[in-house]
């Protein structure tokens, strides 16, 4: 702690009355006392490594439910039935630069925290222990998830150092970084091998490297899931909060809402028809509130890597190669997980359509990915990479822009202070541009 005496020593030229004050100033008189704070140096203790990585987990939690909430409204998963400022933009398909700062910041913080913690851990434990540390592996998995999710949802990415700010880069850079992080995770112990493979499968798929994606996906069991944790006390699942505690988005008039009874992967309650909901209409005072029940508790976890996604990757790869049998097999493996009846092999690969009639390979894949990965922050990437027909003025209650944004621009908080590009350049390819 800093003492006033130290300051006086540096200000030794100060006049005589200092002496009077020094007599009082010594001791603890001028210490800040704030028991809740932990000084950085206090963390240099091997016993605190789990605490560091749990903190990283908390950072990733902050990021992932925000992404889930935003993507649901920008895309076609949910009707933006709320009153938030960003909702007004998101629900018409406008990912405004001013409304996408938080997720950008949280993703980068998770990435940096992983780096920081791994570097600290290396100084705290023996090299051998470090080389097999499950904490290091987990940190890399978290880092890979952050890279991947950043790349899937932002049209361009930027990576900077405190001393050298970066420029705009294509989102593939984020996917490459995700591959690096997941690959690193494979090198540290055995505990997170499956998570790393699941991450690599999705990162390779994002890069369009389907054979590598399938190779990695095959190493992931159907029921594997790597979840992002939420807790009602410190880190409540925002999607739950915004649909149960509040009513900021609704299943009403969405693809998931067309199922009656609801698809088990996308459960919901029609609040206008049953009791038990506090509200039958959204926070906009207009839209019917159909409440999602996938996250039915403030502590509901959000899957980030999973066997079901691995199956979807294998199914898509098969569809792309024209193997409809393999495609159907992989889809049915997922449906079995949920106790759902199998589908029959579609007659053709067909094409994406809006609205979806689920009548051919691509529209089935579209529907299966939509429902299986519902509210997990993945849908916008699917819309983008498939150039989905929904993007051409598709509507979920609110009349959409044509075309709608299929990714988020580099946000205003970045472009306003990063001298390497303008905000217009940062918004290229979006309605903000």
């Amino acid at each position, binding site marked *: 702690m800093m003492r006033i005496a130290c300051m006086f020593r540096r200000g030794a030229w100060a006049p005589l009355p200092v002496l009077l004050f020094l007599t009082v100033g010594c001791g603890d008189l001028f210490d800040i006392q704030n028991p809740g704070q932990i000084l950085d140096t206090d963390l240099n203790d091997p016993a605190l490594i789990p605490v560091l990585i749990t903190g990283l987990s908390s950072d990733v939690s902050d990021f992932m439910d925000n992404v889930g909430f935003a993507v649901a409204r920008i895309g076609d998963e949910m009707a933006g039935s709320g009153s938030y400022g960003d909702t007004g933009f998101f629900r018409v398909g406008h990912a405004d630069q001013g409304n996408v700062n938080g997720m950008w910041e949280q993703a980068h913080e998770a990435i940096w925290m992983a780096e920081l913690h791994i570097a600290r851990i290396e100084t705290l434990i023996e090299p051998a222990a470090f080389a097999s540390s499950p904490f290091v592996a987990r940190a890399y998995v978290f880092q890979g998830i952050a890279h991947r999710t950043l790349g899937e949802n932002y049209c361009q990415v930027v990576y900077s150092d405190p001393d050298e700010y970066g420029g705009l880069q294509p989102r593939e850079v984020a996917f490459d970084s995700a591959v690096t992080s997941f690959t690193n995770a494979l090198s540290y112990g055995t505990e997170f091998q499956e998570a790393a493979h699941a991450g690599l499968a999705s990162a390779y798929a994002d890069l369009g490297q389907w054979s590598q994606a399938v190779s990695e996906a095959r190493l992931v069991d159907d029921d594997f899931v790597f979840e992002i944790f939420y*807790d009602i006390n410190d880190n409540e699942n925002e999607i739950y909060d915004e649909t149960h505690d509040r009513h900021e988005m609704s299943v009403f008039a969405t693809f998931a809402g067309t199922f009656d009874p609801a698809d088990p992967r996308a459960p919901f309650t029609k609040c206008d028809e049953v009791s038990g909901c506090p509200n039958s209409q959204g926070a906009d005072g207009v839209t019917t509130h159909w409440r999602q029940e996938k996250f039915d508790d403030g502590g509901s976890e959000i899957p980030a890597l999973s066997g079901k996604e691995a199956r979807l990757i294998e199914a898509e790869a098969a569809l792309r190669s024209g193997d409809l049998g393999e495609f159907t097999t992989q889809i049915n493996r997922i449906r079995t997980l949920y106790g759902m009846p199998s589908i029959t092999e579609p007659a053709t690969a067909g094409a994406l359509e809006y609205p979806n009639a689920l009548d051919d390979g691509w529209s089935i894949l579209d529907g299966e990915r939509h429902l299986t990965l519902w509210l997990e922050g993945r849908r916008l990437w699917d819309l983008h990479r498939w150039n989905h027909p929904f993007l051409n003025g598709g509507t979920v209650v609110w009349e959409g822009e044509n075309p709608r944004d299929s990714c988020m621009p580099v946000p205003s908080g970045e472009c*306003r*202070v990063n001298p390497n590009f303008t905000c217009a350049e940062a918004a290229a390819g979006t309605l903000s541009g």
Partner: protein
Amino acid sequence: MRTHFNVRDGMAVIASILVLFFTTLPLAAQTGQVTGRIINSNTGAPLSDVQISVRIQGTTIGTISNVQGRYLLLNTPLGTHTVEVERLGYAAQSIQVTVTAGQTVVANFELMTQAINLDEIVVTGTAGSARRREIGTSIGVITADDMESMTVTAVTDLLQGQVAGLVIRQMGGAVGNGAEIMLRGVNTLGGPGGNRPLIYVDGIRIETGLHGEPDEASAQTTVFDDLDANSIERIEVIKGAAATTLYGTEAAGGVIQIFTKIGGGGAPQWTATINQGFSRIGHVGPDIDPTGLHLNDCTMDPGCPESGTWLKLGRIQEYNLSVRGGTDVPWYFATSFGDTQGNIGDQGATNYALRANFRFNPLDNLSIRASNMFTRRNIIFVPDGNNAEGLLLNVMRGDRDYSPGHDDSATLEMDLKQQIDHFITGLNITWTPTANLSQRLNVGMDYSTSDYTEERPWGFFFVPEGTRENDLDLDRNITVDYAGTWSTDLPFVDVASSFSWGAQYYDEFSWGINGFSEIFAGPGSKLLQSGVETRATEQWLRVASGGFFLQEQFGWQDRLFVTVGGRWDGFSTFGENFGLAFYPKISAAFTISDYDFWPSWWETMKLRGALGESGRAPSPFASKRTWASTSGDDRQAAVILDELGNDDVGPERTREIEGGFETSLFEGRFSLDFTYFTQSTTDALLRLARPASIGTEESILTNLGEVANSGYEFQGNVHVYSSPSLSWSVGGNYYHGENKVISLGPVTDERLLNRPVDARFGDIVQNPDELGVRPKFAEEYLGPARPTTTWALNSRLTFFRRLTLDALGEFQGGHVRQSGTARQNVRRRYWPTCMDVIAAVEAGDYSMFTAKELGLCSYRDASYGEWTTLGDFFRLRSVSVSYRVPETWLPAGATGLTLRLQGRNIWHKTDWPGIDPEGNSYGTAAGWSWSIREYYNLPTPAVYLFSATFNF
């Protein structure tokens, strides 16, 4: 121990006085008495606390007048003497009397108010005390007589519209809501909290922040409102760094010092005041809407009260009783009780206040004053503001609300209460061992607690299982403030020297516990443990600061005064590498009217100029990288980054140059005080905005910013006419100030440069005149969020020295203000002035409307920017009629009775399209510009009061 010492010494003093009294009785026949009454020459009101003195052969005998304005000088030596009377805010007078043995001479005085009196003593911003003629900076003084014509229920009532450059921004019309006080605008990047003036009460610094955070009420209760306005004797206001240098770090936002009453005048004198009245909210929203956004008329709405309106008159009753007296040991005790009901539901507040002040002189050259205050406030809020569970939000949105079945009465089931206890105690010790040396020591403590509870009962519509939250906050601040002055005449012609030194220590401790509980088993009253899920957080912080100053003042012929000085400060929150902060000052005051060549009708002209610096401290732990405890992985212990830390962080520094003059003409009938100021804040503390792509959203607090702020102020007063049958005086003030951001460091958001710190931006229609075309928006700068120009006019008309009509109006403008209410209602297709556009858009044919009209009124397009417009308004702050009942009408024992009818905030004029040009949803807790907006908060009510003040 100290109390024991005081009481014992006090008793000794009283005993000594009695002994002296009886031993001097035989001498009475060799002396006479002087008595009389002192009144205000305009209003005829008796003047208490007037200092009466008679100088006789190098010694002075004196007394002060009582509440009836009467005085009595016993044992006055025989002969012809001059009786001099002085009182703050009045021109001094003297009368020659001839005292004869055993006789009583009557000398009555009628004092005229004098806005500028160069010999009045002020203490704020000076090393000890100083005459106004010695001070090179502007100082605003509000005296008890300024308060005379108004019934005050809050301290802000005393300040509003009274001092040029002091702007009060109301936070909302809900009972218990406080106000933001700002002096000379904005000169920091540190948010509204960093711009608050320091508040001192009887020399003891008090907390300037807010009591807790009643968030569901969107209310902000301020420490300022805890003070009992009826106990205030005077208020001194210094506004900028040129004047606040001696207060050091944290004083760049100015200093307000409040002095409470002390006794005197001999026998106990009682004053009782009864205030009865009500508050009323008139028509809400656009006039074309007969329902007043469903608040004035809710007869068609489910849950509407039987009265057919959500609004009601809010009963106000207050009772104040004070007693003062003492001669050698002046004392003052006061107590008050107030009950203020709100205009909706159970909203209301009760206030209790106690004050005990006394002073005694254990030695001839030693004076000790003790001041103590305790207040308790119990406030009941209704859910308000930006709150989906709030009454106003749900009512004003009509059918587009959240309430089940549109029955908005369900919102009132939320129980929001706050109890505030506040205790201030202090000792002011003045020791004058020699005629040249004076020293003072102020020691005291400011201690307050806030207990806020927020309960959604079991079955509450928004959270059926119920919740309870309890915020307990405690603030304890200790002040130790020492100053000494050595005055002497230098061996030069007519040059006097006054050398001062001093040191201050301020220890600030805050502690808070927040408990939350949810999921109750059933109905009934609850505690935190009643819920299935519970959690708690705790905050605990102690910060200390200390500094010392040196000052030298040279005075030449009592006309020219040059003061130089400096202050050195240490602070807990400075970085390891920073050291001490030094703030210099220099000022000059020159009373040119003292020269013989100056025309006699222009009796006062003082020129003044000053340069000084002050600062603001960085926040706790800004210098350290710290981590905060949290949980992750389903309730496992975790740490997350809290503060990146900066070893070099120090205070920001505001340098101010001010110049001006104070003048009065025609025997004080016209007075004017003018000041120009320019402030430059360098090393401004700012959260250095860096690209998040470096890996963190956390910013570093750095000394990189620069802010410029300048403006000018006028304060004037005119006694238009004065006679026993009629007197009329007019006063007023004007302030204009503008600030702009000069630098934000190496990485800059260019939009913010050369614009006000509280710049407001918004989306504005770019194709305004296109018909039938949806608007295209772009972000534009709209204006500052806080008023840049204010003026106030006061007129006081008195008939026959008994009946006084008083009016005060205030203008605030030059800023933009957002109606979030209107914009959000448009989005819900319900805003009375927009219904034609809304209907057209619903019908799909809006070809007759321009893009601008759509940008304002179309539920698909309305932007906050279009609803952010010039916020100028003029408001009649106070209109009152007072009658001083003739003494002959009063019953035995009563010595005075004043009756008053007052209306406050009863009329306003504005072109701003929202509901109320004042009142804000977020109070001062939010950022610079975000906090200035209307968002379903209760408008400012008009208040009507009848008051009776008895003296006996």
